[in-house]
């Protein structure tokens, strides 16, 4: 039991820190893509390529550069989380009604003020949607951490596999599913609350 709680805690911590970092990087890249159209298509193409690399291969590649441990796992999670967040941020920004941008320019907001006061606030529900997808993905990808010497629920599952113990495997797997479902539900509620005034 104690082992399970420890593993769950580790799992959540790795995912949490990776998501915070990924959100910051991805939103910044999404804004950049919105401001610089041509650079934007390059950024999104790169994120898409990263997404297509199988997680085992990516982990192996990262392990060569960064060695074993939590940091390598975190970097992998960040890389996988980029695409959904960048894409949602970028789409939300370019789909803002043009008259709102016109109004924001017309009242005398600079580009940064437009972003901070109008554009980002209006895009938050959609950006959260991207973060939700990334988060749920990360929870399951983080299971792979056991292969590169990182902790988490993957460790319990891996031990179960080695001992051909179905019960152990489930003890590791079920929390992953439950946590993923919980975050999915919680984020959905948050989105809905935020959508109230912006739609």
């Amino acid at each position, binding site marked *: 039991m104690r082992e399970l709680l420890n593993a769950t805690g580790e799992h959540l911590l790795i995912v949490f820190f990776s998501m915070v970092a990924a959100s910051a990087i991805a939103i910044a890249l999404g804004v950049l893509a919105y401001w610089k159209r041509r650079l934007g298509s390059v950024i999104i193409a790169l994120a898409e390529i990263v997404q297509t690399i199988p997680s085992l291969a990516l982990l192996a590649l990262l392990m060569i550069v960064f060695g074993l441990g939590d940091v390598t796992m975190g970097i992998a999670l960040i890389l996988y989380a980029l695409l959904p967040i960048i894409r949602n941020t970028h789409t939300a920004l370019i789909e803002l*009604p043009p*008259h*709102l941008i*016109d*109004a*924001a*320019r*017309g*009242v*005398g*907001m*600079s580009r940064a*003020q437009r972003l901070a*006061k*109008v554009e980002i*606030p*209006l895009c938050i529900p959609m950006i959260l949607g991207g973060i939700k997808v990334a988060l749920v993905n990360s929870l399951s990808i983080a299971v792979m951490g056991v292969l590169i010497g990182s902790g988490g629920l993957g460790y319990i599952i891996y031990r179960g596999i080695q001992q051909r113990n179905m019960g152990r495997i489930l003890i590791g797997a079920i929390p992953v599913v439950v946590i993923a479902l919980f975050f999915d539900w919680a984020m959905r509620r948050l989105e809905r609350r935020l959508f109230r*005034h*912006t*739609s």
Partner: protein
Amino acid sequence: MIEFRNVTKRYGAVTVLDDVSFTIPSGQFAVVIGPSGCGKTTTLRTINRLIEPQPGTVFIDGEDVMDQDPVQLRRRIGYVIQQIGLFPNMTVEENISVVPKLLKYPKDACATITHELLTLVDMPYEAYAHKYPSELSGGQQQRIGVLRALAASPPIVLMDEPFGALDPVTRESLQEEIKRIQRKLKKTIVFVTHDMDEALRLADVIIFMDGGKILQMATPEEMLHKPQAPIIKSFLGRHIEESGAKEGMKAQEFMKRRVHTVLESAKTLESIERMRKREVNSLVVVDDDDHYLGTVSIETIKAKGKAGRAIGEYIDTTTLTVNRHDDAKEALDKLLASTQNYVIVLNDDRTVAGIITRTSTAKAMGQALWGEIES
């Protein structure tokens, strides 16, 4: 004061503004009107540099807008658009105080401004300040849109078809409000519309544009009287007809042609007999050459008439007359001011052309309003 000096704007091969020059003095309500794509919105957006003139120069109070920082410039010019453009993530109060906040007014100054402005449009602060735009009706939203433009007391306010998307009743009340506000706060307003009603109602001066050029810049009255291009005439359409009706209608259009006349030499009994047959109580008396002499009524003959005498002796010459080419309004004024029931309409040679009675007037007006009426 806003001055355009030879302003041109091209997008590729398309010329949107073609060497436009004009001056709008301070405190004027200028309405820019024209068909879609005439360059009216471009003209407006050139004033606050949302579009940059090239070549050409726009001066505000003598200063070239290109010499000013566009962001700072726009904070000093109010801007209202058709789609309203309230920020949906901000409350009414936050929307109104957007520009004062950008200009770093102290917090309590922003609150005072919001209070005052909401009072100006009869939307109590307590009831509305903390609502979101999505909780307001279209008319209320555009009121807030106008207030946002006024919040930092800019001397100039630009309005791009601000009431175009509203229902007619709301539009009219907002038009009245904006005119009242403009007079009260002495703003220079540049207002774009394609609705001539709106232009005539609001404008001190109308700028009519087509194909990127100004066809005419004049006061509403002058434009109504002397539209300088066929397209302006067609825009004015209804209004020209209306004003034409007021001036153009002649007495002859109101008259009844069938007039019961009698020669002055006719005898009294004969005249009474004729009136009885025609069911009228007076006759128009003419001489042998059909010239008008006066009228004779059955009452006069009954009171004073003697059998066998010519009716020439009993003529009433005080009956009202007008020339058939006189203004219809004059004839009607005469008729309404007197106790008589009719006015005789004469030709230029003083022969009788017709008669305007109270009944024929009503009929003629009915026809003018609803077309041919069966009698």
